[in-house]
């Protein structure tokens, strides 16, 4: 990859409305989210400066637009920077300037033009009941739209819990037959970015990796990027120390709650939910602003079978992969062994006993010999 020139850097920075320094910082930040080195950040900066921006088709099914909304609130980059300068957002129902047939035409044109190269993003679940009639756009069901757009997509990202595993629309009796993307497209690799809404940086990092390296992040068995969903929230939770010490908030507003104790007993699903909320927090709000940070138990939005499924107060099944080191092992060693002095003393005592015995034995032996001699003499004298 060619190195980025100073001039190019200046150009792109001004295009993004950032100074040069701010721009590099942004790229490094995204790289860090991915767990990449700062050189990858430079490479990303390079990729972003390229004129050719990847085309993105953003479909919306049964959703609340929360994912888009949260994305809108990112500040580095701002969404407009993203969609105008870093990617080419060719179709999005929420953000399209165009409407009606015009928008539809733009979508088709983009799909045709970037055949096999565009990125498909699906937000919201896809109703499948009754032929998918519960969500129609431009007279076609969502089901058809997704299948059509997926055919020539280079990568498919399911954003939000609805698209990733069904989310809210699939909860309970699931009246519309709401289905996640990967079930509609079983043969394709789908990147799931669950969350309600997901952390926008998990999405941005995935897209930028694709833009920069043309590769997709490593996924777990549920199609989620491992960099963001590889660990349970509980493992890095800021309240973990309270959990380990057995200090729990038992009611909202009680002493423990006010003191920032662990929310496990209030139904926090952190111990069974895979996401990086506890390390990334949420969005750009900062200051510990994520559900658990502000005293609201995690409700497990990223996790199928937890979010929208378990009752909010219900305690989670704690998933731990390895016991933390601070637990005493079954056989903690304790006690004092021998020191040189104590062992020496034992040796000295045994030595003294053996030594004294040896001396006494010698004396006794000597005396016995003398006595024998004496007896012999006496016997000899007697004979004489």
């Amino acid at each position, binding site marked *: 990859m060619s190195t980025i020139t100073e001039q190019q850097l200046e150009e792109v920075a001004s295009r993004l409305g950032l100074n040069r320094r701010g721009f590099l910082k942004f790229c490094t930040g995204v790289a860090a989210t991915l767990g990449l080195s700062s050189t990858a950040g430079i490479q990303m900066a390079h990729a972003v400066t390229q004129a050719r921006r990847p085309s993105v088709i953003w479909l919306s099914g049964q959703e609340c637009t929360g994912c888009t909304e949260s994305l809108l609130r990112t500040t580095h980059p701002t969404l407009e920077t993203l969609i105008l300068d870093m990617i080419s957002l060719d179709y999005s129902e929420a953000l399209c300037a165009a409407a009606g047939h015009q928008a539809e035409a733009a979508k088709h044109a983009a799909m045709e033009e970037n055949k096999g190269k565009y990125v498909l993003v699906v937000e919201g679940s896809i109703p499948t009941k009754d032929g998918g009639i519960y969500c129609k756009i431009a007279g076609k069901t969502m089901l058809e739209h997704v299948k059509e757009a997926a055919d020539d997509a280079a990568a498919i990202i399911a954003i939000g819990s609805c698209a990733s595993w069904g989310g809210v629309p699939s909860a309970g009796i699931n009246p519309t037959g709401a289905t996640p993307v990967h079930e509609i497209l079983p043969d394709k690799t789908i990147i799931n970015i669950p969350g309600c809404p997901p952390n926008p940086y998990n999405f941005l990092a995935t897209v930028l990796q694709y833009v920069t390296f043309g590769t997709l992040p490593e996924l777990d068995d549920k199609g989620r990027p491992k960099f963001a969903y590889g660990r349970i929230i509980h493992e890095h939770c800021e309240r973990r120390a309270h959990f380990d010490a057995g200090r729990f908030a038992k009611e909202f507003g009680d002493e423990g709650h006010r003191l920032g104790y662990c929310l496990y007993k209030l139904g926090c699903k952190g111990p069974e939910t895979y996401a990086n909320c506890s390390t990334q927090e949420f969005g750009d709000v900062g200051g510990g602003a994520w559900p658990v940070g502000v005293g609201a138990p995690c409700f497990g939005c990223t996790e199928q079978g937890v979010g929208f499924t378990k009752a909010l107060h219900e305690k989670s099944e704690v998933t731990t992969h390895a016991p933390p080191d601070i637990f005493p092992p079954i056989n903690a060693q304790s*006690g004092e062994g021998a020191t040189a002095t104590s062992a020496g003393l034992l040796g000295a005592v045994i030595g003294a*006993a053996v030594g004294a015995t040896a001396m006494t034995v010698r004396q006794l032996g000597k005396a016995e010999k003398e006595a024998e001699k004496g007896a012999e003499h006496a016997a000899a004298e007697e004979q004489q």
Partner: protein
Amino acid sequence: MSGHHQPLSNRKLITLPSLILAVLAFIALVLLAKRFAFGLGSVTNLNDGYPWGLWVVYDVVVGTGFACGGYALALVVYIANKGKYHPLVRPALLASLFGYTLGGISAFIDMGRYWNFYNMFLPDQMNLNSVMLEVGLCVTAYCTVLFIEFMPAVAEHYKMQKLKAILEKVLFVFIAIGVLLPTMHQSSLGSLLIAMGYKVDPLWQSLQLQPLFAILTAITLGFSIVIFEASFVTVGFKRSSETHILKGLGKMIQVMLSVYLVIRFGDLAMRGVLPNIFDGSFRSFMFMVETVLFVVPLVILSSPQRRNRGSMLLIAAVSMLFAGALYRFNAFLIGWTPDASNSFVYFPSTEEFLVSIGIIAMEILGYLIIVKWLPILPVDHAADHAEPHGKPASQPEQA
């Protein structure tokens, strides 16, 4: 019994060995002050896995075993009616008195809540299921009995004829009790191990046979310690040899030891733990050392020629003392499994050792002082003649 014993009153009380012993005893006293001021943990290495350490195992379990001389001789002289061993009784009684008293004091020192010890004597508090209760009561009673048995020596010295007369009349009762009590608590010292179950290594956890092994080794230790003391007195005080009496004890050791070893190995075989002896562990090594120490006296004493030699008797006796001590150390400490995961270690601390050494020093010192003060040792004409500067040993004989 006047006229049989005499004090070595012609000897100096303060000698170099007695000074050294006094220093050792003093060190122990200082450390004991520390123990009472700051708790057991400040002096010992005892921990949650090893509740009993050197003080219990050496000072009480082994120490009272070493103090069985008086008991063993009482058995022989008064019960089996072997009058020829009579001269050995008084010195043995003195050693027993010291051994038991200091064993009892050691137990008291090691008690975590010594100020409550009187509860052992309150019938309401007694737990008759407890082996410890029996040991505690018997040892206390036996200390008293030993003291009474020893009283004639004092009465003799201070010419308290009336007291002596009374004592002589009732002495047989105390002698009988003095044989019964050690039989009870010495066997019970072994029974202590039963309740500890798996914590005692299979090589030493013989459950029902524990009291038998304990009493057999205790009596054998008693004979051995008599030989040991007599030999050291002979050499140390340059007195004439007592081998002619001691050799009979050697024969008894031989018999008892054979019985012991046959049952011991029979038990190991029955329980199927003989292979453990060869598993290469530290414990198996210690078992072998113990066994060798038991077998050495057996080999030495098997020949009447060797039994006639004082030096050989002493080697056998010392080997037996080491064997008996090691057997008890093995059972209580070296083969100890503190819990199922065996996660504790223990080795006596330096200060623990110094206290035990100090207590031994007190015993020897006390013995040395008392044999010079009271009529303990049998009258020895040979020694009196051999002592050039000695006043005529015969303190005016009391009729």
